[in-house]
Each structure stands twice: as structure tokens, then as C-alpha cells.
């Protein structure tokens, strides 16, 4: 418990540092926020174009997919805000040999890495996500019942846990392979599958995305909760998140044991 409290304090400290450093190039930061909102708007715009020229995806109307896109952007913003910097930090540390310093600190190394993740630029996506979600809410007339909010909170927590797990897998690969800058791109392409409703994929892929790599918990299930058409698959997804996190910690310690320090 003391360790968690210490790590949280460290996270807040990093957060303050991140805000201060973003304020040094204030003009660039403000431009970045506007750009981020604009860039985030491209996804819903592209979906809108597809839906106006085709019948779209099975079981999804334009307004429902708008809600999906809004929650997707909100999730992108949140994950970038919370852990957006981890990839750069670990890559930089391993390349420069600074990673060894972390091993000497009185906290778990992986916790220290996750604590360095705050990235203020994620706020742009969050703003865009809120705007699109509110618009979709307005057009859909969504009804919120007793279980909606608790379920959304559980899905959010499990989504964060899953993203932490994926980040830990990333860090494990980086400390083993040292010089592969495009690992990040590989992870992004794999997680891209979460950017579309799970039901467009064939059954086998659907099972993977709900049980083994439960990306569905990020946007698909929160949307289904709000649309009041939840299926029992969510319980597999929530359990899957915890399972993947456990596995990531195991892999991390295995990789850390094999880590050979300077020079790889």
C-alpha cells in the first residue's frame, strides 16, 4: 500500500513537471491542442463519409457509430494523458543507458516507468471526445439506468489496466531488443483493431478481442452499455484484462532477469 501511495505521489510530481515543460513552448502547446482537436475530428468525419455513401456496419446506425467514435477519442485522450510518455521514456532511457538507474530506486521499476507516463497533449483528444460524445448523446436520446454508471466505471478501470499491461509488454520488448524504434508502430497497428466495432470481425477474431486481448473493453463495451445492448461477453473481457495484466507483470520480471545492462 505504501508503495502504491509513493508511486502515486511520484506520478503527481511527473504530472506537474509535464505541465511546466509543456508551458515552456506555450505557443507550440496551444497550437498542439487545437491541432489535436482537429486531428481527432478526422476519425468521426471519415466514418460519417462511409456511412453517407454506404449502409455502414451491420447493427450500427450513424448516430450509434458517432457515439462509438466519441468514446474512442475520449479513450485515446485518456490513455495519452495517463501513459502517453512511457514509450518515449523507456526507449530513451534504454538507448542512453539511463535505465540502470531505475533499478536502484526503492520502487518497482515498472511502476516508475508507468509513473513517468503523463503527457498533457492528450487533453486535445479528450476535449474532442467529449464534444463528439455529447453530440451523439443529444442525437440518440440515450437513457441511463441504475447499472450504467457503475458498469462504465468498471470498464474504464479494466481498460486502463489493460493498457498498462500492453505498455508493460512494450517496455519488456524494448529492454530486450534495445534498438528497434518501430516497435511502437507495431503495437499501434495491433491495437487499431479496437477502433472498429467488434461485430464486424469474424468469430475467431471476435473471441480474441473479447477474451484473450480484450480491446473490446476500451470502446465497444462502453458504447454497448450506453446503448443498453450489453451481452455477457463483457465479463470475459473484464476478466481478460486482469489476466493480461498478470501475464504482463510475469513477462516483465522474466525480461528484467535477462536484461544485461549497458550495451544490451
Amino acid at each position, binding site marked *: 500500500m505504501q508503495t502504491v501511495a509513493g508511486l502515486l505521489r511520484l506520478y503527481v510530481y511527473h504530472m506537474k513537471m509535464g505541465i511546466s515543460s509543456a508551458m515552456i513552448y506555450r505557443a507550440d502547446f496551444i*497550437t498542439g491542442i487545437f*491541432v489535436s482537436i482537429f486531428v481527432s475530428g478526422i476519425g468521426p468525419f471519415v466514418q460519417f463519409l462511409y456511412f453517407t*455513401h*454506404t449502409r455502414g456496419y451491420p447493427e450500427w446506425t450513424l448516430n450509434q457509430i458517432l457515439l462509438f467514435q466519441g468514446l474512442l477519442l475520449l479513450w485515446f485522450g485518456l490513455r495519452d494523458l495517463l501513459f502517453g510518455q512511457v514509450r518515449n521514456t523507456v526507449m530513451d532511457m534504454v538507448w542512453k543507458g539511463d535505465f540502470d538507474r531505475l533499478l536502484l530506486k526503492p520502487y518497482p521499476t515498472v511502476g516508475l516507468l508507468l509513473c513517468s507516463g503523463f503527457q498533457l497533449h492528450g487533453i486535445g483528444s479528450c476535449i474532442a471526445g467529449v464534444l463528439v460524445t455529447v453530440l451523439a448523446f443529444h442525437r440518440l436520446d440515450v437513457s441511463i439506468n441504475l447499472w450504467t454508471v457503475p458498469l462504465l466505471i468498471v470498464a474504464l478501470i479494466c481498460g486502463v489496466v489493460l493498457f498498462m499491461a500492453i505498455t508493460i509488454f512494450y517496455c519488456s520488448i524494448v529492454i530486450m531488443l534495445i534498438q528497434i524504434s*518501430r516497435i511502437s508502430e507495431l503495437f499501434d497497428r495491433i491495437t487499431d483493431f479496437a477502433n472498429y466495432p467488434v461485430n464486424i470481425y469474424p468469430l475467431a477474431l471476435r473471441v480474441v478481442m473479447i477474451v484473450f486481448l480484450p480491446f473490446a473493453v476500451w470502446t465497444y463495451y462502453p458504447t454497448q452499455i450506453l446503448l443498453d445492448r450489453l451481452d455477457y461477453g463483457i465479463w470475459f473481457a473484464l476478466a481478460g484484462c486482469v489476466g493480461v495484466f498478470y501475464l504482463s507483470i510475469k513477462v516483465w520480471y522474466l525480461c528484467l532477469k535477462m536484461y544485461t545492462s549497458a550495451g544490451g
Partner: protein
Amino acid sequence: MRIFLKSIHIALKVNLAYPRDYLISLVIYPFILILNIHLFTSIYAYSEVSHIKGYSLSQMIWYYGATTFVWIFIFNFTDRRISNYILTGELGLRLLRPVSLFQYEMANAIALRIVGILFEFIPGMVIYSLIYSPNFLTIASLLKFFAVVALAFVLNYVLNFIIGVTAFITQNNAGFKRLMGAVTTLLGGAMIPLDFFPGWLQTVCDYLPFKYLFYEPVRFFINHGDISTAEAFYRVIFIDIAWIAALYIIAKIAWKLMLKNVVVAGG
């Protein structure tokens, strides 16, 4: 010319130092293609059509694959590198070299793309074809693609050089670079074929250079019916060259203007 070629040679050696970075594309590409196969198969099946906006299912799936290939041909870090020279004060050193920054960065971009074509395009093309056969592809369409994408490389380089020069004003131009990246990919047709845009937006795109970076090369690659004539090919080549010439003049003027005000710390 000798210095320029030597610069390419040196940059090639640097870029070949980490071939694993390029080879990772071979793992990445299947994911992109598989995602697009499922996405568009679902859209086409649900819409019960064989063509959408003139694109068959295989052309639409490959549209995004071809966009990735175009990136391989045209991508460079020139904007970021120029910004870094300014942020780190390295610009002074670069200005003392016997080759202009424009040529030096061009040499680096060429070397980067040669390695990209060898390690990403060729194996990527094989992998894509094995997963989803490009039944529309002909030798002629592929040759036309190479010609158009070569010009797209130069066009993108000049655009990136101009973006890089903006760092003289902003020092850190990351936000501006991101904005340009988003505009380029959206209005260039990398996110969605421009045929899906409303009429007024298509007209706007016609007056901008971005569609010649992605949309036109990709359409030649997928052998789209609209550009099958020789006339369409020469028209694209002509407009490409005109844009390159116009932007080159802008780049030169911007560079001269900015250089007058540059102060290199410690230099």
C-alpha cells in the same frame, strides 16, 4: 553533384546500420491488411454492392495498402531534422558545409527511401500479394505508379523543407508539423479516397498539392478506371512538376528570408 552523391552514400551507410527497424514493417503490414480486409468485406457485404464510388472490394482493400507503400516512397524527416538543428544549435555547423542544407537533406531523404524501398516496399508487396491477391494490377499501372510516386517524393520533400523552415520562427514546430501531417493525409486522400468527399471539398483538394502525394499515385497503383488513359497520366505528371517548381521557389525565398534573421548561439 559529386558532393551530393557522396552525401547520399554516407546517409545510406547510416540508414543501413539498423536494418531491423525496416524489417519490422514485415510484421506490421499483415495487421494493416487484415484489418482492412475485415472492415471493407463487412461494409461491402452489408451494403450489398460490388463497387463503391468506382472501387471494387479488392481495390478498396488495397487502397490503404497502397497508401502505406506511398508512405514508404515519400516519407522523410526533413521537417523534424531542420527543427532539431535550430533547437540544438547545430544549424551553424550545417551552414558551414560545402553542400547546401536543401541538397544535404535531399541526399538524406533519398538514402532513407532507397533503404525503405529495399527493406519495406519489396517484401511488403510480396506479403500483401500473398494475403490478398492484387487482381487489378498490371505492369503498366505499376510503371505509372513508380513515375508518379517519384514525383510525389520530391513534392513531399519540398513541402517538408518549407515546414522545417518554419522552425526559424517557432523554434519548436511540432504542433505545426502535426497539423500539416493531418491536413496532408486527410486532403491527400490517405485516410479515405477523395471520391467520398462532398463536391466542394473535392474542388478545394483540386487546388492543393496534397492529392498528388497520395490519392493520384494510389489510383495508378490500383489501376482505377478514371486514370487508365495516357492523357490522364500526363496531366498528373504535368501538375506534379508545376507544384514542385512553385513550391521550390517558395522554399528558396523562405530559406533566404529566414537565414537573414538567424542567430546561432555560440556560433
